[in-house]
């Protein structure tokens, strides 16, 4: 019952799956962004886990960069969502489909 790399990878994989599920199935644009955060966290967990199990320092450094970039992403994405809501009076992401065929 030792905890090794595979266990972390499974946790991270399930987190990724849940994040993707959120992105695909939610109507609310803010919820989609939450899904994105989950996906990002899954990736960061991978980095840290590999760093712990023999990968050295680099994984943690890049996880740090990842967190910073995620913060930047969140700011810009939420600002965009606010603008979209302002423009079409709805948070429904499926209504923002002006780019369709």
């Amino acid at each position: 019952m030792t905890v090794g790399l595979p266990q972390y990878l499974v946790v991270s994989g399930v987190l990724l799956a849940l994040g993707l599920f959120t992105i695909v199935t939610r109507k609310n644009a803010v919820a989609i962004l939450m899904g994105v955060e989950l996906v990002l966290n899954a990736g960061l967990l991978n980095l840290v886990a590999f760093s712990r199990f023999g990968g050295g320092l680099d994984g943690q450094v890049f996880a740090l960069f990842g967190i910073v970039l995620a913060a930047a992403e969140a700011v810009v994405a939420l600002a965009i969502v606010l603008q979209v809501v302002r423009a079409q009076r709805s948070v429904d992401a499926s209504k923002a489909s002006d780019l369709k065929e």
Partner: protein
Amino acid sequence: MHEAAPVLQEFPLLFLVPLLPLIGAVWNGVMGKTMQRRFGHAAIHLPAILLPAGSFVISLWAFLTLADAPHGTSMYNHLWTWLPVGTLQAEAAFLMDRLSGVMALVVTFVGTLIHVYSTGYMKDEPAYWRFFAYLNLFMFAMLTLVLGDNFLLMFVGWEGVGLCSYLLISFWWRDREKAVAGMKAFVVNRIGDLGFSLGVFLLFWGLLTTPASPAPAKAHGEFRHAPAAAQEAPEATLATSIAFREVEQILEDPVKRDRIVNRDILGVGLMTLVCLLLFVGATGKSAQIPLYVWLPDAMAGPTPVSALIHAATMVTAGVYMVARLHFLFTLSPVAMTVVATVGALTALFAATIGLFQYDIKKVLAYSTVSQLGFMFVAVGVGAYWVAIFHLMTHAFFKACLFLGSGSVIMGCHHEQDMRKMGGLRKLMPITAVTYFISCAAIAGFPFFSGFFSKDEILWKAFDSGNMLLPGGGVILWAVTAIAALGTSFYMFRSYYMTFSGEYRGAAAAHGHDASAVAHDPHGVAYDSAHGAVHGAPPADPHGHDSHGHHGAHLPVESPAAMTGVLAVLGGLALVGGYVGLPLLWGLPNAFEAWLEPIFAGTAERVTSAGFGHGAEWGLMGFSIIVAFGGFFAARVLYKDGRSPIPARLLASPSPLVQATHRTIFNKYYVDELYGVVFVKGSLVLSRGLAIWDTRVIDGAVNLAGTIGRGFGFLQGAIDRLFVDGMVELVAKVVEAAGAKIRRIQTGHIQAYVQGLALGALALVALAYLLAW
């Protein structure tokens, strides 16, 4: 004194010397327009002046450190290994030895002054920021050229200054003539640059393929990569380095030197070919025969640019390059003779053209070409330190002359024709005094800076034992002495036409028609002469600045930013020569002693013809006579515009006089000749090729075509029936599929994400299956 290896002393700030102006260029290039709108001109020129000034301070610091260090030391700053390609190691490294130190000081000092001057001269210019961005960029390129530690970095600077020159000549690009002048400079420079790069390639190839030992070369395997390993004994080939000092070190070894000197390519010595190709580059950049034609046209740029780029710094790059590569040029007596001969011919040729120009900037342009010729004479006879000495004094007095002309042009409401000036000594006293001092310096009046450098060139030419010409250096001397006489004459002619007598521009300011100047005796004379010569107005382009404002009021002295710079440069034109006093007088020659270690390695190959001190005294006296002769002739003929002789001479009906004047006035028709030979020539060539094309090649093609058509008809039948049917089937399928598939493009991001995730998984699964 032969140091086995020049000592490199780390000077970590050296990279800032080129970098600071680059920062200024980027800042003003990117932010300048906004800054100018928000904060006015000061926001532009403060950084643009302070950054090159910072370069100057750092250069000075490095220079003083260098002066303290023992002989043979160089300031060195290695940044990174730029191009480690195979056996070629190109470093991004800057090197300041005694030669490049002098150059860097001259460039940063004169450059900074000219930036200051420009704040006055360009103050009405809407694109002020663009001008300073270009000027700073030029400083960066020039300093890279000067301080670069290897051929490649030098080439970067070499191309960079060419680019900036082009940008600044066509600064007022809305004026078609100026844009064309810029293009001309660019194209002509490109010819030279091609020569330069071919020379570098050939040199590198030669070093790479010359076996260093008589035994057959080993397999390419153990090429050294670190510069420190330079003294390692036998290698497979001579070198794989492109750093100046390493190549020089290799060539100091007599065995290796002989190996490469004895190589031939198509019956021409390898070294001769390398040097001649490099010299082609120098003729392009430094405006020598046959590539000098761009420089007079380059006067279309703003006057500070003419002073900085086309007089003081960039055009001397060729001289600097030859001096830098003295260890190559001294290996080839043929190349040295060619350099000196071309220099002397250019000096004379340009001096004669200068005699009859009326555009004040054109006079100075031809004078620059001529003075550069003097410098090439000096490097050609192996008197490198003299060339650099003259380069420095020339930078001072020629920059002062150009800036003085700029001051005059601005005072006269953007008039460049000297016939419409006159009498400015009273109106613009500072400009007049500095202009006179600089004229005296360039003419070689005793105790002015130009006297020391020019006199030394004449003496070295006379005394040279390296020339392959019959009569040795004496012919060179004679040619350059005549050029010096011409120089003195036309410089003082420009002075007297501009500054003495009465102001002739007021009438012209009312209107530019010929009748306005007709009541002036000169006007009549020149105009009738031109009427006879061209049947058209004077050919020299009046480079009216785009913001000309013509009023009837008299010229006034320029603002303090301009006159202050003029005073500084004028002072240096006066005293700048005292660092290089002639040894003949028993005085210490600091300049020669300073540069001696640089050129010591090749000094033994520069020989003297053995004329004694007596001859040198004699020549010096002769130089003084020449300088004053030109001066008095100009004074008699042009002072106050009273003498009728020039007018009468030009009006003379003698066909000989007319023909001579016409030829020289039109610059020996070289531009026209080039137009016919190269421009028309390539057109004719292309037309000939077109005929060949239509007759011969097209005929063959048509024959093949006819045969092909027979087959084609046959194939066409098959095509229509079978192939087309299949193609159309495919098209139909695609169309039908597209009509269905385009529904996928829903615009729903989530649907895309879904597809993306499943697709990525499919790929993973595929990879998994394939690996399994």
